[in-house]
């Protein structure tokens, strides 16, 4: 270890590993070793990446930024759903069939327990939302009407719209389950609405 002064520290020819510099601070000495190459690669690499990223995404707009990308994703999903809905053809009969299928009703019951009991209670006897087990209905008891109520909700009365959260097949399943508890008349919230004619 030989000391050198800082005027020669940049001289490549005289560079020696682990050369102690002239200065000393409270007993602390310093080497002046070269920066590791791999570290220099990270440094320069990240700078080049940054310039390139800016060029691609902003200057030249070669790739979409977040909102543009989001819109592509949403459009693709929308098209897929349309295709599926066309194949399924949901109507009253389809929902009645579903309410007669045990596995779908079980699935509907599970969804009901998770999402609906806060307002309709465990048996569907009603708390914030109406009693679903009596014979009268506020927004119609026809399966497609019930489906619409679940899909769009009735925000004014506190019923959320479930379509986006649950997706179509779960919404159908929960309607199928609710169809099975109609007219079971569990004691609960007083009846509201009009008699079911379906």
């Amino acid at each position: 270890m030989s000391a050198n002064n800082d005027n020669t520290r940049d001289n490549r020819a005289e560079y020696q590993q682990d050369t102690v510099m002239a200065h000393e601070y409270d007993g602390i000495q310093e080497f002046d070793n070269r920066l590791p190459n791999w570290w220099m690669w990270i440094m320069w690499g990240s700078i080049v990446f940054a310039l390139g990223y800016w060029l691609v995404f902003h200057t030249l707009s070669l790739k979409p930024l977040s909102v543009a990308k989001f819109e592509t994703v949403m459009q693709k999903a929308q098209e897929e759903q349309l295709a599926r809905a066309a194949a399924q053809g949901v109507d009253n009969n389809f929902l009645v069939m579903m309410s007669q299928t045990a596995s779908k009703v079980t699935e509907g019951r599970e969804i009901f327990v998770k999402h609906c009991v806060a307002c309709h209670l465990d048996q569907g006897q009603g708390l914030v939302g109406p009693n679903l087990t009596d014979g009268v209905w506020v927004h119609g008891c026809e399966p497609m009407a019930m489906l619409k109520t679940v899909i769009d909700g009735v925000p004014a009365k506190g019923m959320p719209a479930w379509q986006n959260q649950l997706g179509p097949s779960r919404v159908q399943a929960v309607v199928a389950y609710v169809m099975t508890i109609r007219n079971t008349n569990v004691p609960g919230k007083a009846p509201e609405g009009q008699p079911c004619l379906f």
Partner: protein
Amino acid sequence: MEATNTQMKTVVYDDAIVRAFSTITVVWGVVAFLLGVIVAAQLSFWQANFGLEWLSFGRLRPLHTNAAIFAFVGNGMFAGIYYSTQRLLKVRMASDLLSWANFWGWQLVIVCAAISYPLGLTQGKEYAELIWPIDLLVVVVWVVFAVNFFWTLAIRNEKNLYVAIWFYISTIVTIAVLYIVNNLQLPTSLTHSYPIFGGVQDALVQWWYGHNAVAFFLTTPPLGLMYYFMVKAAERPVYSYRLSVVHFWSLIFLYIWAGPHHLLYTALPDWAQTLGMVFSIMLWAPSWGGMLNGLLTLRGSWDKLRTDPVIKFFVVAVTFYGMSTFEGPLLSIKSVSALGHYTDWIIGHVHGGALGWNSFMTFGILYWLVPRLYGTKLYSTKLAELHFWVGTIGILMYVVSMWVSGVSQGLFWRALDAEGFLKYPDFIEGLSNSTAMYHTRLLGGVLFFLGSFLLVYNLLMTARQGKPVTVSVQVPARRPAADRESAWQLLTSAPMMFMMGLIVLSIWFGAAGSMLSPVLLALLIVISVAMIISYGLQQKRWGHWYGLIERNALVFTLLALLAILVGGAVEIIPTVMASNKVPLQITEQMIAADPALAETAKWVQKPYSPLELAGRDIYVREGCYLCHSQMIRPFRHEVLRYGEYSRMEESLLDHPFQWGSKRTGLDLARVGGKYDNLWHYLHLMDPRQTSPASNMPTYKHFKTATVDAAVITHRMAVQVKLGVPYTDEDLALAGQRYASQAELITDDLAAKSVTLAPNSEMTAVIAYLQRLGRGPQPLEPAPPAPIPAAAPVTIAPETTEAAPATPVAAGN
């Protein structure tokens, strides 16, 4: 004395101040860890606030973070800076009075924080929650510290400034700039104020501050301390001076730009998000430069790792620093942020830094320093070893559990089923899924907390077995002469011109369009190459130039200030200007003139009603933003779960912004209208009534606490000064509107057999929540419908009163 050398004089170091700061560091450390354990326990067990609003998560969490950052790390930083600065400059601190004013002032700030946070006095901005009178106190204390430090620099007996001092200088100037700008606010009372920035501006300024509080309070001071204490403990020369130069300047210049990585995929303009991301990635190398210089300094003294607990703490601290500064850039990549943001991963990330880097660094310093302050040896190496292992295991349990829980939350939220809809529609399932990890985290935190008692005992016994010592040193009676080069000559020299050119070109490159940019990019590269060649050709000149800078404290400080101002200015000024251009009222004529405004008009926010504003202030007071975001990102899964993604125009009038940074609970940006008033009432009284697995605290005190509408009217008047377009009529009718809107809610609840006072805080909070994501809500009852609707009007709402179970009793 004078017999030995007439040209020498004696400098007596002030170590009493270092002893005071070291002692209080340990005390606040234990407090900060205890608070951490309590808030972690509250996330595991919601009952852990003992039903007291003063101890609820939203109020204690700021106390925990502030205690850890400003009380524990802050006092440790002061202890280390006061000790090392005197020795590195061979001079006693300039003024004992200022040193002690710094000490007592800082402790007063901490005590004020500890009182004000549990009382719900807060600004509602993370790590900047202190209310304005305490902010002023912080500024005064910081100025005291700065004056004392720079005065000491001026009277130093050492010509050159060592790398540790560089880091201290950058800390002092940057924290001053950040703290003042982020706390610009307009008081409404002695304990309440609104920040002058709102919405996207407030978000950007807050995270410019928040991120750089991490940079210049939790990173640069410990790095400076590493260059003194770790090198002292290793008894080896620093690995590389030139690495110190390169990583110091690149670190402070790049760090300041990285703030927007906290706002990726939010309503912040895309260009600012991109800057946040790419500058974070460029920070990787400078950060690792610090780690390398630390670890490589230990070459040749690795044997000490076996025997010396101080070295153990330092090595693990620096390793965690390296890990966190790799994880940070990683999390800043947009697609990784999409997964990790709002989750526990971020909590794990910051604790890797706070526990691994900051705490272990501070522990190492204390174990090294305290024996020297008391002229003795450490009482027990074994206990320090035990502390090391208990602490390390605690950190690992903490960090790993948060990784697991965070990544699962991210995957859980985004999972879609075969039909392209949410696989896990119920948010609470994700939370329940994390329970085991929350318990593990709590256990890790408890271990770390218990470990700190070993520190307390060991240091106490060390101090008892020694006694305070006074250290003095002989220095030349005459100070080293100043260099001939003036500050102006240094600032206008070739290297400076090169660097200014690079910065100006880079900014121009960003602003220029696709035609000019490639040219500028080429020019940038040419200048960089020219710099390298001229450096090579001139052999020694640039090194010589830097040697001069290093001796001129004024020039050094100015350059550091310049380096940290560039990034902030480039990001903040255009964002403020652009968002100020968004019209707050858009008329038909305006749309006719500029059709693009039609889309803006859809989102432009209307001011909150008096009742909603009251509710919002309570929301801020309770720290709801610490668990609930109000910022829906443009992802399919977020839009399915929460509704339309959030637009910049929607929160421009929000002082402070409440976008949030963590989702322990759901996003609330569009919660308005999703549930009815009764649901909100039940949920706030006891969240488990509506969501059985919730870990949210109860807010029963909302029911009894009341709001004075006159206070809200005054606050509205203050908001007018901030640019919120309340009209004179709005202010004149505020009291009346407050009452009528409140009655709408209480009447609705009364119809559902819940009695609530219209002037209760509960009413205000419900009104605010119902407003979120929707336009203005009715302020008074609708006039009786002129024509009876054909729809079923036969429903008799009175019948609800006959419902068997009262809703309040329904919660088990």
